[in-house]
């Protein structure tokens, strides 16, 4: 196994988990969204989504803002600059690893 392929083991594990990867991939293409949108798109349970978001917030990848629309409480979510950079690095690392794996005889 060469060095580049070994890079798979060094992928960012916070993002690499499938549930969190879904969340980060969705947040990467929007400016911000609310909790309900992520719930609808990922089809996770409230608790599961909340746990993943907390983990991403602890890593500094996601910003969570509790606000109101009229009288209805709303949780706004957006990717931080660090989160966006981490996702971009993750995407590049994974792509490089796949390209390497394809070239291995």
């Amino acid at each position, binding site marked *: 196994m060469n060095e580049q392929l070994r890079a798979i083991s060094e992928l960012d594990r916070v993002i690499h988990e499938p549930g969190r990867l879904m969340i980060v*991939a*969705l947040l990467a*293409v929007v400016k911000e*969204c*609310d909790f*309900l949108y992520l719930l609808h798109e990922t089809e996770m349970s409230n608790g599961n989504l909340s746990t993943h978001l907390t983990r991403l917030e602890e890593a500094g990848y996601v910003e969570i803002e509790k606000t109101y629309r009229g009288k*209805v409480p709303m949780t706004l979510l957006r990717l931080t600059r660090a989160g966006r950079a981490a996702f971009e690095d993750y995407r590049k690392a994974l792509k490089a690893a796949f390209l390497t794996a394809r070239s291995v005889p």
Partner: protein
Amino acid sequence: MDRPRRYENVDGTGEMAMGVMMLSFALVGYLSSVLPEGALWRKNGLATFEILPIIFIPIWAFQHWGVKAIKRHFTWPRTGYVAYRRGGKFWWKAAVVCFAGVVLGAGGVCLTVLARRFHAMSLERAVYLAILLAAYAFSVLRSGTEHAWKGLVVIFMALGLIAIALVVPGDAVQLFPPVALFLGLVWLGSGVATLYLYIRHTQPRAPEAE
């Protein structure tokens, strides 16, 4: 990941906006045909700066109040709120779209001039109608397979455009008002049907602990 982009029209507001735009064009075409020959708006044919507010005010009003009201009352409580990124890529894409618009417009003028020179009006009309149909078909393809019935709308639109082309005489300018009216109604109808199905198949969520 173009899923959030498709989400923009999950409630049919994109199609409704297109419908309102086409109906505005139809109104302008109608006004041009009923106003006296010497009226200010008829000096340069269909498109003069004086009539641009008639096109843009309904579109702006629908985008500003109509779309926001639909999103606020139906979409956001059901499937959530999304704000789209308007970063560097957005302006780059907008520039490409503007450039493509200018190229298409110039192509249209060339087509009209050539068609008039060689008396090939039917070709000119067919090209214009094909472009309008392709625009809707592209938007249907882009929305994915969620609404298979929109394929039938494309077929209905094609048949309607062919029928209008056969019945209405004259060049593309004379053909435009009935075509705009037909397309506006179809687009608006398709948008309303999408909204109806969206409301019917998605229930608002009760506020829960997040």
